[in-house]
């Protein structure tokens, strides 16, 4: 048991022991073990044979290098000269495409960068004040989109499509499901690119006297009675803009409805609430 442990300790030292490179204290202990261990003694004998071969080989002639210092020196000097040599004009011309190619790549990278997706230009046809109030489905304001997206909420409103011009972005956008697309899917409609509708002339709003209206004549007199008011139509009413209240109208002329019917106002008094 102890012998085997000692053999393991000694084994790595046997080559140095044979080639006489061990320190003296190690030599003594290895020699003591080898004298009493047949296996290690056989090992030492085989090492002696190998070490003898290697030692003799070490001093033997070896093949000589064939290339000389002059060859290497020439190579080094040639390298140094070529490193200092200025670029020939022809070579410079040949290399002229390099900065051009770099510039082209930079331009393309800037143009195709994902963060630079152009915002679609949505132009409203006509004046803002002339737009009718939306009367379609009640569209709740959508949460802000995670990325900059075109404002196409207006395009999804059915009544306003004809009055809008949606200018699509120049290149395809990434396939991201945006809130607008979700809304379009829920309405089972996709945003449609339409031509701008021709601008409609603003229709004058004829005032319709109501029960609460105070109808007065141009000279400041009030009509004789409610019946009197019904017998007349407004011939020349002031043009009112949307949103203007009709609490009081100054009427220049009151003409009997039977004598001067006005197109579009027939029965206006009857239909009025």
């Amino acid at each position, binding site marked *: 048991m102890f012998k085997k442990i000692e053999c393991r300790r000694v*084994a*790595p030292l046997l*080559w140095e022991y044979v080639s006489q490179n061990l320190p003296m204290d190690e030599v003594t202990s290895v020699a003591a073990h080898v004298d009493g261990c047949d296996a290690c003694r056989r090992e030492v004998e*085989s*090492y002696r*044979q*190998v070490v003898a*071969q*290697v030692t*003799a*080989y*070490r001093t*033997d*002639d*070896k*093949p*000589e*290098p*064939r*290339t*000389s*210092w*002059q*060859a*290497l*020196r020439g*190579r*080094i*000097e040639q390298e140094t000269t070529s490193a200092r040599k200025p670029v020939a004009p022809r070579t410079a011309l040949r290399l002229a495409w390099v900065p051009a190619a770099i510039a082209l790549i930079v331009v393309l990278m800037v143009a195709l960068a994902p963060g630079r997706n152009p915002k679609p230009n949505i132009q409203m046809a006509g004046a803002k004040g002339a737009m009718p109030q939306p009367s379609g489905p009640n569209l709740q304001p959508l949460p802000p989109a995670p990325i900059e997206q075109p404002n196409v909420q207006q395009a999804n409103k059915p009544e306003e499509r004809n009055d809008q011009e949606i200018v699509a972005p120049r290149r395809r956008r990434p396939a991201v499901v945006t809130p607008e697309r979700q809304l379009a899917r829920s309405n089972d409609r996709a945003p449609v690119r339409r031509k701008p509708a021709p601008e409609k002339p603003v229709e004058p709003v004829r005032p319709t006297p109501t029960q609460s209206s105070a109808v007065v004549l141009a000279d400041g007199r009030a009509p004789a009675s409610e019946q009197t008011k019904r017998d007349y139509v407004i011939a020349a009413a002031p043009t009112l803009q949307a949103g203007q209240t009709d609490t009081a109208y100054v009427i220049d002329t009151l003409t009997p409805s039977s004598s001067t019917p006005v197109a579009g106002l027939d029965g206006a008094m009857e239909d009025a609430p």
Partner: protein
Amino acid sequence: VVSYAAQRMTIQIPEDQLVARCRRGDLDAFGQVYAQYERPVFRYAYHLLGNAEDADDVKQETFLKAYRAMASFKGDSRLLTWLLVICGNLCRDQVKRRSRQREVLYDPRDVPVDTYSSSDDPDEKIEKEERSRIVMGALRGMPADQREIIVLREIEELDYAEIAKVLGCSLASVKLKLFRARRRFKERVEFMLQAGE
């Protein structure tokens, strides 16, 4: 131009001074470094590659690289150790490029031996060639890392610390690798001796 013989006569200049002159681009100083270390570098490459022609190419490449990278030599080891590191890397690249195969145990009868003995005595010449065949054959049949450490220790006679620097490993690792490599080398030499009988 300093002749080769003259270079060999003037290698007594301390190594650090030679290195300093080489860093300044002094080609004559580098010529002295070349004269001093050409043979060990060539021998190392020859034993790793087993071919004098390839070893010659690697030797030239080693010195060319060393000249270019002289500024990076820190001086914390011998210049030879640094040159052997470069040479070892080039040899490994060469072996990978050339074979890209596993280590093959050569048939000793197929091992070609370069005939380079300068001895006039025919018996001595035969004996040297036989020894060369045995040692080279044994080395060729070993894994590259074991072959490398045997060459560094038993042929180039580097100490353990220098071997650790060349191989880039610890001292303990060198001892362990060397023990295994020697055992393998012994088996290979015994095999070559039996095959030659």
